[in-house]
Each structure stands twice: as structure tokens, then as C-alpha cells.
């Protein structure tokens, strides 16, 4: 999907240094602190009906890392080699970046910009899936598989709207402890379960009303469907490997009237949802500061290693 060389990074936060003449948001000023989110085509049906996260060209518009209109890219090396540099419209692994206007959300609280940066993707994905799409009620149960930032944000959102049971599933004990700390009513270490679906059904007395997979792994997605109660909805949120398939039993799926949906970016409209999450953090309902660790650019390798080792969200 993406050509190389490329500059990645899609959860940027920084200050505006220049503004193009026809940028539509006329309230932007040089020096404004901003958070950066995903790009959209702006013309498809979801884009024009306030569901920009569901843009039908989301994958290519964001991952191709080139401008939408003419496929050009702003960056090049000194020797002229072109570098793809509009990843998600903004390529944030750079000191300065040329950003598509639609990715820009004003940040009213630049003092905490470091923890607000990931709202642009990971945090709004987890929180949005629960707050915008699934919306568990006070009698509902929700299972979250995978306690990275996306899963933990889904958990925090579920606690915020007072879901009755919030079951957190992971294989790393520290993650499960964090899940408990952030509001899970039950934690399950899936490595210790012979039959994970049965464990969930026992806890929920019949199955979960909602389930969210944030692992993107085939066996977990399949188990997620098994865990549902009749009429339950499961959301695929974590990115699965390309060209792999899941298998499910369509007869029981039918007889139990289950739903399986894919949700990109938590169906978020960043202009409205990013500020909302910033507010929730300031009110203490969304303690994302517990998920973040800041590393200087020179320690990028260490940061990525810690991310994959599960040491940081």
C-alpha cells in the first residue's frame, strides 16, 4: 500500500508555522498548537454525511502517503529522491511537515500536547468504538480483547458510560493490572484459559452484549464472536493481517442474531471528537496520561521496542 522511502507517523502534535491561502479553517493562526488526525477524500458518501472515519478510500488516502489530488509528495532527500511524506495526510515522524488542512484540529491545551498527540489515531479509535458506535448501556456487558492503547481507551470509555460489566482480556499481567486500575470489572488472562469463550460466558451469564477486538489476530477475532450473547455485537478494530480469513459458524450466528462489524477510527469526526476527548481527560474520565511515555527522537528504537514488548501502551 505504501511505497518507500517514506516518512511515517500519524499521530502528530505541534505548532502551525505557515498556512496555505485557501485553507478553509479561517480561525487558524501561525503559532497555534494543533493535533493532527487522519485524512479523508471529502467526496464519498460517508465523508459528506459526517462519518469521515468511514471514508471509502480511507486506506489509500492515508497509507499511500501522497497528496490526494495529484499523487505528489512534498519531501525529498538532498539527492532528489522523492520520499512519501503525507502519511495519514501528515507524516508526523518529521521535525517539519506539510500537512493537509483537514488533518488539523486546534489544541486548546498545549501544555499536555504530548499525551494528546495519540488521540489523533489510537485513542480516538478505542474510545470512539465504544462511545460512538457500540454505546453499551448500564445493563450491558462488554469484553475488550487486547489491552494496548486502543483497548485501554475502549475500557476507559466503557467505564465512563457505566457499562455494567467490563471484561478485560490480555496475556500480559501488567496490562491486566492496568485494565483493573482503569475500570475493568473482571480481568482474564487468556493464556490461562482452556476455553476463553466459556470463561466469558460464565462471567456474563450467557455471553457478552458487546465485544471489541483490539489485537487484530485471527484466533481472537474468532473467539470474540463465540463470546457474544444472542443479539450481541462484536467489533473488529485491531488491524488483522492482510489476506487471512476468519471462520465462523454461520448457522449459530444466524440463530443467535449476532452482529459482526468493522469500525475504523471509532467512527470519529476528529474536529468534534478530539476536543471532546481532550475535555474528558481534563475532567479525569479519560486518564490517558497513564498510557503514555515520552521518548526523545534519538531513542526511537527503544520506544518501538518497548511498544512491542508491551511495556507501554
Amino acid at each position, binding site marked *: *500500500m505504501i511505497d*518507500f*522511502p*517514506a*516518512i*511515517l*507517523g500519524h*499521530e502528530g*502534535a*505541534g505548532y*502551525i508555522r*505557515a*498556512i*496555505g491561502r485557501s*485553507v478553509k479553517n479561517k480561525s*487558524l*493562526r*501561525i503559532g497555534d498548537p*494543533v493535533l493532527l488526525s487522519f485524512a479523508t477524500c*471529502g*467526496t*464519498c458518501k460517508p465523508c*459528506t454525511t459526517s462519518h469521515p472515519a468511514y471514508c*471509502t478510500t480511507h*486506506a489509500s*488516502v492515508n*497509507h*499511500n502517503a*501522497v497528496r*490526494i489530488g495529484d*499523487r*505528489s509528495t*512534498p*519531501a525529498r*532527500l538532498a539527492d532528489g529522491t*522523492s*520520499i512519501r*511524506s503525507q502519511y495519514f495526510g*501528515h507524516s508526523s515522524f*518529521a*521535525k*517539519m*511537515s*506539510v*500537512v*493537509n*488542512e*483537514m488533518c*488539523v484540529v486546534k489544541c486548546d491545551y498545549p501544555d499536555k*500536547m*504530548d499525551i494528546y*498527540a*495519540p488521540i489523533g489515531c489510537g485513542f480516538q479509535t478505542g474510545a470512539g468504538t465504544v462511545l460512538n458506535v457500540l454505546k453499551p448501556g448500564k445493563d450491558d456487558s462488554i469484553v475488550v480483547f487486547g489491552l494496548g*492503547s486502543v483497548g485501554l481507551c475502549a475500557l476507559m470509555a466503557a467505564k465512563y458510560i457505566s457499562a455494567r460489566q467490563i471484561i478485560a482480556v490480555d496475556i500480559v499481567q501488567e496490562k491486566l493490572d492496568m485494565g483493573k486500575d482503569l475500570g475493568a470489572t473482571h480481568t482474564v488472562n487468556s493464556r490461562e484459559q482452556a476455553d476463553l469463550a466459556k470463561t466469558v460466558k460464565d462471567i456474563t451469564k450467557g455471553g457478552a452484549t458487546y465485544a471489541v477486538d483490539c489485537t*487484530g489476530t485471527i484466533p481472537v477475532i474468532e473467539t470474540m464472536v463465540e463470546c457474544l450473547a444472542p443479539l450481541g455485537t462484536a467489533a473488529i478494530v485491531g488491524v488483522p493481517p492482510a489476506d487471512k480469513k476468519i471462520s465462523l459458524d454461520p448457522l449459530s450466528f444466524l440463530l443467535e442474531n449476532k452482529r459482526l462489524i468493522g469500525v475504523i477510527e471509532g467512527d470519529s469526526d476528529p474536529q468534534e471528537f478530539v476536543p471532546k476527548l481532550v475535555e474528558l481527560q481534563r475532567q479525569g474520565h479519560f486518564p490517558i496520561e497513564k498510557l503514555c511515555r*515520552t521518548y526523545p*527522537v534519538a531513542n526511537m528504537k527503544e*520506544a*518501538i521496542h518497548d511498544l*512491542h514488548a508491551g511495556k507501554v501502551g
Partner: protein
Amino acid sequence: MQTVPAAVPEFIRDPKATVEHVEDIAVVGNLVNLVKGDEEQNTQDRKSDLKDIKTVALVVKEPKADFELQDVILDEIRENEVLVEMKYSGICKAFSSPDFN
């Protein structure tokens, strides 16, 4: 909303299509209005070219390669774009593993 032709081109609709990418378009007379501080947006247009901005970035040369900090040059800012000095960036596991793509 982004002004994009209503008929979205084929290569955008198919994310896996391999298409010749257009490189380094030379835009003649790029007009950028630098809005400073509290100045009204509709003061006379200042035709200043903001081009060839030198900066540094973490570049990935090929799939599965490491991130390397390198000098890069940004060609220009278009009229629907903004130049942002990045202070922080999140690293998302799904798209930062060298195995992705």
C-alpha cells in the same frame, strides 16, 4: 472538505493498485498567505514563496527497514495545506512495526 474532483480516480479506489506516482511537481508562482498573529486574513496578499524547507525526519528506506534520522527538503506548501512544526508524535503499533507492509 477537501476539494477533490467528484469522480475519484481509479488508483485511489483500489489501495493495492501500483500506479506511477507523480514526483516533484514544479508549481509556478505558489501563493501562500502568511497570517501572522492577529492580522486580518484579507490584508493584501503577500506573494511569498515558501519552498524548499530544510528539516529532518525519520525515513524508512524500504519495507522492514529501520527508521533513520535524515535531512529532508519539503518542496512547498500548497494552498490547502499547513506547515506544522512537530513537537510530539504518537507511535501506533499497527503501523510502526517493520513488518507492516
